[in-house]
């Protein structure tokens, strides 16, 4: 497997009046060509910030303080804006959560799709561009695409709009798609359709995907590997099925146990006491220590690094002995 994207010790900070706060603190992961990775976490865990900073879309007052995002060996974090434009929206596409906010309401779908293509390739003629647009609309299973190209976003339902967004992301045949909560605004039957579509496209087009979501069940359906984030750090990562079947970090364990399971009617759900700290007051040591049922003395003083737990999953937790330095552990 060749590495498509390598995120290394990414630190993103936001310069606020009271001093800088750290939104992601040393996030690292690799993505192979055609691999689907899930970034899971609750609000404020830093998963969207990670997604945005991959394509350097972090805007003021946020900035990438250190770390690297290597795409085919080139560091996107330090790249010139001009060079970045040949990659962002071209070889790496992004899908956002709210399909109504992403599309321009006063332009037809066709105009928006053709504009995207011609921006990335000014030599392309209009005829050819609309041909590609049609092909992509067919690929996301939109019925009668010729007619649909002439229509405005408000003429589409939520699920259809999300299909259009995906079609736009596909226009330039990207190698990587970053999908930030692509199904959160959708109903469950539509969500299932969109997930099927994303998997199908990754498989037929050989695209890699980073799926950012708060929903572990969605991650279980779509991705091969998963990274669980908490308060700006990756606390656990590994093959999705292993992490979900045998979570190693107490936070992941708590998160999975908090989900209502089939057949558990009326039973009390396992709850994680307290809530995620805000970025301004992340506790010393392991950020999860005030909520952790297995907290030890060392947790309050030392921040744990990712280590290999029993089933080969990596967990940032002092429960597991520090045997292998993480640099040598590749997923």
């Amino acid at each position: 497997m060749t590495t498509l994207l390598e995120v290394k010790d990414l630190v993103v900070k936001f310069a606020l009046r009271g001093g800088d706060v750290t939104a992601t603190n040393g996030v690292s992961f690799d993505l192979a060509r055609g691999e689907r990775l899930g970034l899971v976490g609750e609000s404020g865990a830093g998963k969207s910030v990670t997604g945005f900073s991959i394509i350097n879309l972090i805007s003021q007052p946020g900035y990438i303080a250190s770390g690297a995002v290597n795409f085919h060996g080139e560091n996107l974090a330090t790249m010139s804006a001009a060079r970045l434009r040949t990659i962002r929206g071209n070889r790496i596409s992004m899908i956002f959560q709210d399909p109504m906010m992403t599309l321009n309401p006063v332009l037809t779908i066709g105009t928006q799709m053709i504009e995207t293509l011609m921006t990335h390739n000014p030599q392309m003629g209009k005829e050819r561009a609309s041909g590609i647009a049609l092909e992509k609309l067919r690929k996301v299973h939109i019925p009668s695409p010729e007619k649909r190209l002439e229509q405005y976003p408000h003429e589409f339902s939520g699920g259809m709009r999300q299909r259009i967004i995906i079609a736009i992301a596909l226009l330039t045949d990207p190698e990587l798609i970053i999908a930030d909560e692509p199904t959160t605004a959708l109903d469950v039957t539509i969500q299932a359709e969109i997930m099927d579509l994303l998997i199908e496209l990754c498989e037929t087009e050989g695209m890699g995907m980073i799926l950012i979501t708060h929903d572990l069940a969605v991650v279980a359906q779509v991705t091969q590997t998963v990274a669980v984030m908490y308060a700006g750090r990756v606390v656990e990562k590994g093959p999705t099925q292993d992490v979900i079947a045998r979570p190693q970090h107490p936070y992941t364990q708590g998160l999975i146990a908090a989900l209502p399971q089939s057949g558990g009617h009326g039973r009390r759900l396992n709850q994680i006491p307290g809530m995620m700290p805000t970025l301004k007051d992340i506790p010393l040591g392991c950020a999860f220590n005030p909520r952790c049922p297995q907290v030890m003395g060392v947790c309050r003083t030392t921040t744990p690094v990712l280590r290999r737990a029993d089933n080969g999953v990596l967990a940032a937790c002092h429960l597991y002995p520090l045997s292998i330095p993480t640099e040598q552990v590749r997923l």
Partner: protein
Amino acid sequence: MSANILTVNKLYKHFDISGGVMDQLRWRDGRLQRHKTLVRAVNNLSFGLLPGETFSVVGESGCGKSTLGRTIMGLYPPNSGEIFYRGARIDNLNHKQLLPYRKKMQMVFQDPYASLNPRKTIRQTLEAPLRYHYPQLTTAEVKDRVEEVMLQVGSDPQWVTRLPHEFSGGQRQRMSIARALIVDPEFIVADEPISALDVSIQAQILNLMMDLQQQHQLTYLFIAHDLSVVEHISDRVGVMYLGTMCELSDTAPLFETPRHPYTQALLSAIPRLSGDRSRHTRLKGEVPTPINLPSGCVFHGRCPFADQRCIAEVPPLILLEAGRQVACHAVEEGRI
């Protein structure tokens, strides 16, 4: 029937969105006519709630589940049909006559950021309904009651001097529940009370709601779109599609063997942690608008089992077995 705490009988709620008189004028059949555009949000719903149970209404956006909850609470007047609370009809009462029922029926809303007044302290928010419904209480009694309710919802009574913005989403939802609870209700309509919350916080609020139900013998009408949550907390479930109830059943049999084709599709779409996607049934097409309701069974355009009868005739909710009602011609005829 009389054992029900709440009975809804042939309830209809339509919204007129046609605007002013000038907007309503249409040229038709050679003359000017007034034409009304109606959103048929709730159509012919009948069901009853037993004391102490959790009845969940599920369905996708626009199926009328929130409208149903709000109509029951008297926030919307129904167009026709009847609502009974402990045998007494409440849908035709005026504001004053409704007052004693307002104490018994309370509501918790979806968005804890929008449903608490940002300029009132928690104490003001909690005291207002109490003083309104129990004017005879002394200041000391009101204070005690506020403290008691704060403890019941698992919050620190010291926090009552704070404003809503000082709390997280989960804490705010506890305050919303406290506000509903403070007048000592019997029946609570909870409209998506946890869908704005994070997973670990959802579990806290669900546990709280289940605990409170046991301590106070509350009856819940729980409106939700998250089916795994519904499966966890409900005794009975009503599945809604385009303003009609297509299946109404005890929870366990519904999730084991859904009978209505829409219920089957809906349940198979739930993402499961096991990651197994093989059993998904996919629906064709999209939900029609409630402005132009399909004839006959509202689901016929997307149903793989639809035939001529489904297009022509509205299927009634029929009793299939004890605790199980389905509105489907195909199920009734034994075709599925």
